[in-house]
């Protein structure tokens, strides 16, 4: 559960939003804070990319697919695991999905 701008936001036990419509930029900030990440522009461009991906395909991308998509859309320099890990710790696809208000990517057992 999160408290954002006086509103209670329900999350599952791993911290993913229960209702995807609850997401806002403020909610993203709150989730990121819990994960000890302070969001900067490089974070946001990944978050918006993930939300676009979900809009288009109804799923959150697996890591390999996230790397590929970032490379295609934001340039080769950014389309690397190392770069994404520098922003979102050791599990970028999972953490960025969580902050972007998406379900967990389908590659996590």
């Amino acid at each position, binding site marked *: 559960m999160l408290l954002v701008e006086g509103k209670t936001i329900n999350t599952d036990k791993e911290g993913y939003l229960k209702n995807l419509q609850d997401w806002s930029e403020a909610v993203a900030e709150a989730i990121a804070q819990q994960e000890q990440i302070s969001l900067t522009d490089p974070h946001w461009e990944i978050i918006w990319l993930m939300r676009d991906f979900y809009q*288009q*395909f*109804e*799923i959150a991308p697996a890591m390999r*697919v996230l*790397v590929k*998509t970032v490379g295609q859309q934001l340039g080769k320099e950014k389309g690397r695991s190392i770069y994404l890990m520098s922003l979102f710790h050791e599990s970028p696809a999972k953490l960025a999905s969580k902050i972007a208000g998406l379900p967990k990517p389908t*590659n*996590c*057992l």
Partner: protein
Amino acid sequence: MTETTEQPAVNPKKLLFLNRKAPYGSSLPREALDAVLMASAFGQQVTLVFLGDGVFQLKTQQDPSEIEMKNFSKTFAALELYGVSSIFVEQSSLQKRGLTLDQLLIPAKLIQSHELTELLEEQDQVMSF
């Protein structure tokens, strides 16, 4: 928790997913698609086959908003990004349902039933949904 890297699996298996059910009558088609994405994210060699009412899963123009279900037909377009390009539709199944390839939402190859028999034999595992 594991997350896949850019490395392919060491010993990829040939996995065939056989889809035989219409899209919204049960949860099987969605579960099949999740399994396909997971297998390909783990670097397995995935083949996807649509047979019988399963071909209805690929019909264009699906919009299940009024029946309050998720439009998972949009996810088929992500298969290419997941490296799944081996997608077959059994010819007589499509024909019997009055559908043609241009009414399908992703590029698929037509396959005859006897070719499907052979394809099944070539796999390491076949998962039926």
